[in-house]
């Protein structure tokens, strides 16, 4: 089987691609060949030739769906991929829309529906929480920095300033709110989400929904080592019954289809707040593989329409510790991906 994977940017704020590929290559139920799909010539995964057989650059989501489809048709002619696993929030819209056309070409996907994708958007989180009975922090989507001026009276300080796809910073006064607003909106566009800050401990759950309300996989994790960008650089699998119950409620109520990551905050009273729903595999997915739930493998099986039993357990108290690694790369390889768009 040939599987195309995005998110090869294994950098300090890493894309999930390399971890997803490790899971796929360790799958016990099939063997596969990996095609990388990259946006930038220096995404480290491009040069990990023991993991990625060949990489093709693809156009940024801002180039539109037609440009992406044209490129995927070319890649299809060359490689005949059976499956594509997109790993970025920002590219999901295009892949969800293109999924029926890809299916006709023989390329499978297993993605959330467009309604699920839109509904869980940070901008829509308050309505989402209300609809499905999930506790979420109060938040408001704003289009100008002035709209934030009264929110501190409602939510108190600090405020969390979030980009629509990525990035979040804490602000302790209006000057900081404005600075974060300008920085994040310049990078990710509008709106900016201003969210109430919940004091507590952050937990994450990654999982896989079968699209009919069933949980195929779920592993909760506590971050142990967090980078200045808020990314987990180390974490541990935990046995948190409340987090798992909340996860099951999320999947059952939304009938979530595909992989996801829930970002949860547990306050001092033990109450959970759902901070974010990432509609894709997280970068720390290899922990799930390591504790007995190979989510990339199960995802590939679901996408191919193969019978897939839900995982029923995982090892608690296993840690992941991330590291960085310098590869030595010939200039010719960089030239190849930069000029020809494939390597």
């Amino acid at each position, binding site marked *: 089987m040939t599987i195309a994977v995005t998110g090869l940017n294994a950098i300090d704020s890493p894309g999930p691609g390399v971890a997803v590929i490790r899971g796929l290559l360790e799958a016990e139920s099939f063997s596969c060949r990996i095609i990388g799909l990259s946006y930038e010539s220096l995404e480290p995964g491009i040069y990990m030739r023991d993991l990625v057989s060949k990489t093709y650059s693809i156009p940024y989501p801002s180039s539109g769906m037609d440009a992406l489809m044209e490129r995927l048709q070319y890649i299809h002619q060359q490689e005949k991929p059976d499956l594509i696993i997109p790993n970025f929030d920002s590219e999901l819209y295009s892949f969800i829309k293109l999924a029926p056309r890809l299916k006709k070409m023989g390329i499978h996907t297993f993605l959330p529906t467009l309604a699920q994708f839109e509904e869980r958007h940070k901008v829509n989180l308050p309505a989402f929480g209300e609809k499905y009975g999930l506790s979420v922090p109060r938040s408001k989507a704003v289009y100008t920095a002035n709209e934030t001026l009264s929110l501190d009276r409602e939510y108190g300080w600090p405020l969390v300033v979030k980009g629509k796809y990525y990035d979040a910073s804490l602000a302790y006064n209006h000057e900081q709110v404005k600075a974060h607003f300008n920085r994040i909106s310049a990078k990710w566009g509008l709106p900016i989400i201003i969210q109430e800050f919940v004091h507590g401990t952050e*937990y994450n759950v990654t999982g896989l929904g079968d699209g009919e309300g069933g949980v195929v996989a779920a592993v909760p994790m*506590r971050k142990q080592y967090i980078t200045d960008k808020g990314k987990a650089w180390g974490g541990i*699998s935990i046995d*948190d019954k409340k987090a798992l119950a909340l996860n099951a409620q999320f999947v059952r109520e939304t009938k979530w289809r595909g992989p996801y990551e829930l970002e949860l905050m547990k306050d001092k009273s*033990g109450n959970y707040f759902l901070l974010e729903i990432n509609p894709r595999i997280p970068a720390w997915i290899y922990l799930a593989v390591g504790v007995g739930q190979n989510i990339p493998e199960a995802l590939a099986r679901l996408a191919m329409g193969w019978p897939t039993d839900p995982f029923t357990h995982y090892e608690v108290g296993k840690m992941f510790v991330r590291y960085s690694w310098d590869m030595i790369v010939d200039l010719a390889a960089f030239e190849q991906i930069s000029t020809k768009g494939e390597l």
Partner: protein
Amino acid sequence: MKIKKNIAVSENGFIFNPSSGESFSANPSGLEILNLLRQGHDKESILNHMGENYQTDSQTLERDLTDFIETARQYHLFEHEDE
């Protein structure tokens, strides 16, 4: 005052709470107290045990034990105190 059943304590005094993912280290006397608590001993019984094995006055012992138990409580190591 019972230590949660799922709390893992290694022979070196490394404590892991699988519900929260938190880990702590106890020194040898702390480990001894934890093991006594896990065996179901109450505060009085632990004070007697420690008094027999350590050369210290009963006031210091009681103060230190109270401190230790309070810290363990804050770390949610006892049953029925969170979750």
